[in-house]
């Protein structure tokens, strides 16, 4: 085995390295563990690291390679993958970043996790997140904050902050996150990596602890578009256990090099003039528009007349579904229990008060109120009507364009504690929320560093339902202009050395 720069490896590099015998999957797993150990001391992306599971998966990959059967392995053969901690993996704790589930051990494996394993991925561990995915900074986790690898005083975004930070620091080439209102796209933007929220229904939600069932969708983080596309290839498709999942046979890598010539890229004027959009982000997105135009795309203005109501609809529908989904955490069968209560009512009350953090309690109470008799018709029902209008807006807009380009987040990563008012925090997702409301696919693509902050800035691409390959094609074109996402500078050197053969490695044989 020769020395290799683990953090620089793409998914394709790992596959070709395995094929050429440059390294074994076991070496990759070891390198990943070394790298996680080195980088995560300062970042705290991982809540659990799972070396045994990683080595077991690596062994299976190595056995297949040794038998000349690499071709039979899926698209993630030998690729270290981390999972957001709301995804069940048998043999791990699944905490959702909450005291409520601090000691909850998964009884089964989520479909999206299983598909990664089936595709040859190496499960490296579970990643930090805002409690039950309620947040945009990973600050609501009960297990400490995760630092942004670009600036340790800043948040990585959220709720999938651990997933974004792990990729940005080079700990794993791919992670999975979930996105209910922007929880993949916003942290991807803050950490300068690719983050894809596929069209609702493309990836099974079975085994992913639900926040807003009609909004949640699982997707990959990666440092380049092709890695994200390969991960999607492994993830998508109908699952008998999720009746909202859809069949899909698309190869998401197929059109990546097609370019954007002749494509119609939609621009939403109200997004570009939105209050709170920082100039450096607006400039970067305008720059991206120019580059796409120069590459032959037709730029068209599209209107989303009801998009402004998305935030209001979201903060009705989301809490209502969350209230109901979280009602199962009652301290009776599993989870945090406040001991010593003589009656069920007071045990419920004390355990839920003690197990849930402030933001979770806020959303549960909000949902409980919004669904109550007499209130339902004032909020929930109109919110669903707004949802229909926004969905129609997108459908109309995609009659005029193939893909929409917008900012991913109004600003770059903010400092810990900088935003304490929930309503201001909610505005972090102003450009992403309407896409969850409508169910379309969306993704973040890095556009380099902001002219003012020097921190990563991203564009968001939005696609018609189940045409996610279109936005990946545009993302690949932008990547050719801006380059693939770099590892955050402080971690580039730290993790580059981790591919050195460890003294304990078996050096015999080839």
């Amino acid at each position, binding site marked *: 085995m020769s020395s290799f720069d683990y953090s620089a490896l793409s998914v394709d590099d790992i596959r070709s390295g395995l094929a050429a015998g440059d390294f074994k999957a076991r070496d990759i797993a070891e390198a990943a563990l070394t790298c996680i150990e080195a980088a995560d001391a300062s970042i705290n992306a991982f809540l659990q690291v799972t070396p045994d599971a990683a080595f077991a998966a690596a062994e299976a990959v190595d056995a297949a390679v040794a038998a000349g059967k690499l071709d039979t392995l899926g698209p993630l053969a030998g690729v270290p993958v981390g999972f957001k901690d*709301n*995804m*069940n993996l048998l043999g791990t704790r*699944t905490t*959702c970043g909450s005291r409520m*589930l601090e000691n*909850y051990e998964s*009884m*089964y494996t*989520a479909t999206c996790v299983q598909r990664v394993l089936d595709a040859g991925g190496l499960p490296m561990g579970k990643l930090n997140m805002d409690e039950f995915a309620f947040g945009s900074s990973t600050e609501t986790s009960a297990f400490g904050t995760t630092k942004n690898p670009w600036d340790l005083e800043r948040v990585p975004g959220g709720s999938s902050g651990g997933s974004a930070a792990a990729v940005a620091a080079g700990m794993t080439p791919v992670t999975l996150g979930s996105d209910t209102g922007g929880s993949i796209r916003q942290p991807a933007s803050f950490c300068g990596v690719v983050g894809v929220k596929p069209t609702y229904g493309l990836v099974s*939600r*079975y*085994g*992913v*602890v*639900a926040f*807003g*069932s*009609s909004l949640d969708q699982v997707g990959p983080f990666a440092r380049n578009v092709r890695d994200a596309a390969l991960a999607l290839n492994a993830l998508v498709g109908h699952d*008998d*256990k*999720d*009746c*909202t999942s859809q069949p899909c046979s698309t190869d998401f890598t197929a059109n990546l090099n097609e370019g954007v010539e002749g494509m119609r890229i939609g621009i939403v004027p109200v997004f570009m003039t939105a209050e709170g959009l920082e100039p450096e982000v607006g400039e970067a997105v305008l720059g991206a528009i120019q580059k796409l135009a120069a590459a032959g795309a037709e730029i068209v203005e599209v209107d989303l007349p009801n998009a402004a109501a998305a935030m209001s609809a979201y903060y009705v529908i989301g809490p*209502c*579904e969350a*209230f*109901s989904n979280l*009602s*199962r*955490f*009652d301290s*009776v*069968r599993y989870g945090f229990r406040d001991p010593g209560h003589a009656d*069920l009512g007071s045990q*419920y009350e004390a355990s839920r008060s003690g197990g849930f953090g402030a933001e979770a309690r806020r959303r549960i109470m909000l949902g*409980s109120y919004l*669904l*109550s*008799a007499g209130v*339902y018709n004032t909020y*929930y029902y109109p919110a669903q009507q707004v949802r229909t209008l926004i969905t129609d807006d997108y459908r109309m807009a995609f009659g005029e364009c193939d893909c929409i380009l917008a900012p991913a987040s109004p600003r770059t990563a903010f400092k810990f504690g900088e935003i304490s008012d929930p309503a201001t925090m909610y505005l972090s997702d102003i450009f992403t929320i309407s896409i969850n409301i409508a169910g379309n696919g969306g993704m973040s693509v890095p556009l380099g560093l902001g002219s003012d902050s020097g921190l990563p800035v991203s564009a968001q691409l939005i696609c018609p339902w189940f045409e996610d390959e279109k936005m990946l094609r545009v993302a690949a074109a932008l990547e050719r202009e801006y380059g693939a996402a770099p590892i955050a500078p402080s971690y580039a050197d730290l993790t580059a050395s981790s591919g050195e053969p460890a003294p304990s490695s078996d050096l015999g044989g080839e």
Partner: protein
Amino acid sequence: MKTMDQVLQDWEAVIGLEIHCELTELETKMFCGCKLEFGAEPNTHTCPVCLGLPGALPVPNKAAIESIVLAGLATNCDIEKHTMFYRKGYMYPDMAKNFQTTQGPKAFAMRGWLDLDVDGKGAEERVEVRDLAAGDEANGATRTETGYTTHIGITRIHMEEDAGKMVHLGGGEGRIDGATHSLVDYNRAGTPLMELVTEPDLRTPEEARLFMQKLRQVYLCLGISDCSLEEGSMRADGNISLRRRGETEFGTRTEMKNINSFKALHDALAYEICRQAEVLEEGGTVVQETRHWDPATKRTISMRVKETADDYRMFPDPDLAPYDLSDEFIEGVRAKLPELPDQKVARFQRSWGLSAYDARHVIEHRETTQFFETAMAQAGPDAEKFAKPLANLIINDLAARMNADEGFDLATSALTPARALELLGLQIADTISSKQAKEVLEVVLAEDKDPAAIVEERGMKQVSDTGAIEAVVDAVLAANPDKVDEYKGGKTGLLGFFVGQCMKEMKGQGNPKLINQLLEQKLQ
């Protein structure tokens, strides 16, 4: 307290039922692949879905939806093609998700009905039809020769999932009061459950009892549930209020939940009618509440006062897409409908000349229906002459025995349909009397022998020799000259005495018809 009959002279009872029925004949639960099995070790038929583990998602059981569509079609419902599942929130450990998946304003089956034929003693409860002539109508009830018919609206039949079973330990009689531990068995959690809601069209406890019985017959006929009241796979909630006769507004109602026998349903409602009338007649008001029927004391007891309506925070289940049923699916289910009880009654009337009353009672049980059909198929060219006697045998002897003796299983008893025909053949041919037939039936059941062999063996043959009977008749009349005089003086009721004396002389083997005839001749 007044009797119910007295109360119902002045008051009208308004009764509605909610009848729950588990789809026990399905292989798997409503939203997961767990096996449906009654009586298994606790928590052995469970999975992440029915345990409500974090991340688990429901997937609807198509076979369950087929069953409820069958039930809807069999009860004259409209099938709603576009429906949604809803979440009904309540915190209690028997429902692991702390919400029950059920249906919203639109159920799979809506706006149906069943007609009830009420006869016998139960028909007397409906005071306003007692004195009507056949064919006349009062309050939606039409008088018939044997009772009356009435039309009961069905509001809806919706699909939901059953809860787990709680067992409370340490308290008295498994009650939660004073219990130190509560155990939950989630084997039942997620069992597909149909809930049928009637319109408030029922007017007497007997109608409520018959409605539930008829619905059970329909469900059994569809093969969708074992409808076991004992095991709780079928259970009813009864709502009842009173209003003065002529009044059109509803009174305040009380509700009795989880009633698990036909008798209890009838008796609980009858008790409530009397109790509510007493409250109202003393100038009080009926409290809207749930009451518990205690069969031991034959009273209902207040469970809790509903100060505010429960708030279940119902909303469409976002994990389950709106459910669309195609015309093709519905027609496919319709094609699977078996012959329903009412159709069977009509056929028995048409093919075998049975009265509606006899036909209805023959099909009251699956076993008796099967018995009748098998026997009639074996009866050969003269089948029709067996129909009425066979119906009588079933209704008066076999069904009565089934009701009285839980251990009696007609299907495996020594009385096969062929033996029943043999027995009835002996009776029709006047070889044995009806009284002897009953004796032979007992022996068949006890000793597993053929009726003809029993008659032969015991010398039970009926004496139909006119000469022999005449001799006995003459002897009896000669021995009772004073009674003969009384008879001739107008006390014709003494005929029975003479018949009895003759039968006694003939050790029960005389043909009663001939004895009657000869006595009447000689006493003229």
